[in-house]
């Protein structure tokens, strides 16, 4: 995206934007925002060469460009395809895209353990979001899922390969951010795994960033593991003078306690640029070792996407509906909404609950209580 590059018009789901030549379809769609932006599990704008792998961002190009209006024969990865002037793209308006995406989501979840209840990433997991949006409740997979042993990557990072979706983001991060290549992918196909060769600690000042780029719970912060759920903690922007990095971070706090420290992230879940305009990677010291509020200059609560579960505890003053229950019932007595028969064995009465006037009372269950 060089300065002064010509502007190209591109229409995505019938909305037209102008973007500089060289922009990818994905980034053009993100400019429009909302549902028009395809989900991206492997692309990461700050990492060179990322993208193209997960295939969740597939879109249909129904018109190549003004000059060559032929549609593209296959769906393309929007994160790795650049726009042309006059291009027309279909994302959620294309049944083909939605069908392929449903397929990709199914493939990604095929061997995923779905252990969200015990996974630290739950609540800020991109795969979780993706499956809520595009996945199905059941699975058609009837086989044992693939599992791996957990690996310790040094004192701070835990690798739980079973959850990995092989997006390669952490590989690019380790390659591009740290001096020495220390980890990569071993094996191939469905037995490929992220690994250090052989069972090595990852020790350099910036390796902690792999935790931030990991879209799932495969790489987690050992100083935070199992300490709390992300939606109970409150993100707070803070900074400190750090000789190694910008020192601009997010503290994840509960009460006065700092539970976790991460880089600041934008609405696409990627790390933000710092106030100096550089990518906001943070060093291990800031991330893992400064867990006292006194280590930091607090700036204030971070802005959180309203849809995020992380915001669940932070919006006060819930709006109440204008009409009250009584208005709705129009003078009728409220009845039980839920059939307690199905809730508990203890309450199995020989009574038709719906025949009882008014809310059920314990006396109504005397029949049962007697024997």
């Amino acid at each position, binding site marked *: 995206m060089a300065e002064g590059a010509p502007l190209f018009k591109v229409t995505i789901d019938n909305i037209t934007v102008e973007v500089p030549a060289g922009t990818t379809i994905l980034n053009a769609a993100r400019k429009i925002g909302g549902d028009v932006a395809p989900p991206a599990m492997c692309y990461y704008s700050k990492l060179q060469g990322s*993208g193209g792998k997960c295939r969740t961002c597939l879109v249909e190009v129904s018109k190549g460009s003004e000059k060559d209006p032929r549609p593209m024969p296959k*769906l393309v990865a929007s994160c790795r395809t650049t726009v042309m002037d006059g291009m027309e793209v279909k994302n959620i308006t294309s049944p083909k895209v939605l069908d392929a995406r449903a*397929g*990709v989501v199914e*493939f990604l979840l*095929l061997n995923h353990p779905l252990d969200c209840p015990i996974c630290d990433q739950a609540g800020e997991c991109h795969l979780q979001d993706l499956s809520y949006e595009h996945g199905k409740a059941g699975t058609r997979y009837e086989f044992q899922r693939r599992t791996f042993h957990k690996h310790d990557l040094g004192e701070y990072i835990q690798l739980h390969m079973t959850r990995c979706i092989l997006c390669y983001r952490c590989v690019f991060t380790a390659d591009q951010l740290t001096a020495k290549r220390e980890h990569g992918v071993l094996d191939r*196909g*469905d037995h*490929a795994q992220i690994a250090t060769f052989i069972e090595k600690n990852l020790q350099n000042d910036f390796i902690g960033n792999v935790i931030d780029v990991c879209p799932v719970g495969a790489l987690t912060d050992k100083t935070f593991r199992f300490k709390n759920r992300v939606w109970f903690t409150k993100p707070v922007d803070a900074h400190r003078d750090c000789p190694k990095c910008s020192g601009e971070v997010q503290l994840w706090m509960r009460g006065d306690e700092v539970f976790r420290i991460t880089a600041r992230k934008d609405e696409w879940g990627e790390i933000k640029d710092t106030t100096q305009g550089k990518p906001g990677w943070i060093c291990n010291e800031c991330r893992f070792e400064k867990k006292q509020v006194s280590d930091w200059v607090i700036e204030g609560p971070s802005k959180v996407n309203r849809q995020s579960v992380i915001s669940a505890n932070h919006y006060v003053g819930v709006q109440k509906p204008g009409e009250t229950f009584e208005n709705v019932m129009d003078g009728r007595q409220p009845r039980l909404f839920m059939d307690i028969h199905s809730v508990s064995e203890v309450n199995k009465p020989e009574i038709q609950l719906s025949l009882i006037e008014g809310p059920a009372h314990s006396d109504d269950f005397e029949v049962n209580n007697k024997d």
Partner: protein
Amino acid sequence: MAVKLLLENAHVEGIRYYEAYRRTGGYRSVEKALKMTPEAIVEEVKKSGLRGRGGAGFPAGMKWSFIAKPEGVPRHLVCNADESEPGTFKDRYLMEFLPHLLIEGLIVSSFALGSNATYIYIRGEYAWIPDILEHAIDEAKANGWLGKNILGTGFDCEIYVQRGAGAYICGEETALIESLEGKRGNPRIKPPFPAVKGVWDRPTVVNNVETLAAVVPIINMGGDEYAKIGVGRSTGTKLISACGNINKPGVYEIDMTISVEEFIYSDEYCGGIPNGKKLKACIPGGSSVPILPANLLLKTAKGETRYMNYESLSDGGFATGSMMGSGGFIVLDEDQCVVRNTLTLARFYRHESCGQCSPCREGTGWMEKILKNIEYGKGKMSDIDLLWDIQRKIEGNTICPLGDAAAWPVAAAIRHFRDEFEWHVLNPEESQRRNYGLAHYADAREIVAA
């Protein structure tokens, strides 16, 4: 008698070595080509209509003319000798018995493309062949066909042999390039294409062994003459590696005018099916291409004779046709089980997927598991539709064509042999005892007579 351009001298004694090769007219094309301009050579190859022999059948001359020529940036020619497609073993034959033919083709092609450093990337399992090639390279060098200032023209060229470590995916051209650079053999995301950014980001052409060997007769006889052999857009000769249930498996050079029936039954080629068995099905172009039942193999859906060439084999599209592919011709007789055959292929693709993109990584494993269930009597009727749905979601949605190559055999097997899958589901015990399901065959000669 069929025309032979590549294997003409294959049985001359000592042809593997320089002396005999030169005596039978070897290296004439280098003498001729180095007096031409590189553009003129590309023009001859274009005129010849030569199509890539590695599988996709892309016109070689056209590919050559796409190579970018930025000032001061070296260009490379890479010979794809990774030949790992099940059923394909024609390149091996060429390299093992006629190494000088490949070297000769490489020198001419390197000159045409301006490559001073040319690589042969050979699959690791061909462990003994690099020695043969390197010996041929040394001989060529000792006789002035390689090295500095070849034939006093000022053209320098070196050929290096690089061994792979045993991965089918490294035959895909961009994975090959990554592997050649010493990295993990993951296919690259295209664009950029190798013609613009290939080995070490330099413009690169990747061609199959047979494609490059075919450049020799093209230069010797002229592109126009070469184009007269064959039919339509299937010009020249093609090596076919025939295997499976046939009397005479082996590598055959055919001109592409003969019919599939002649190829299978004539004594000059496969010599028919052993033990008086009937033909059931055939995978005509290497394991990735769709399998065809006998009736659609010998005749197209329109009832015309099917020939051994690019157009005729793909007549009818994937619904009733297949592909020329890499020329790996696998014949199945009436005793063979299509379900088992499909399982074998699915297992191969699962094992060889690089694992970069989710549909191929996860889908290939899933298909294998379902096929295993069906084959071993644990399948359900709904599994067949599920298989269909999985292959459909892999095809076209992946980075490289391995995803498609894994999907097509499954799709074709279900398309043409669905009743055999159903038979496995309905007769789990019998399908375990007998190694085949419904014999969905038709004997060739009966059809021809009818």
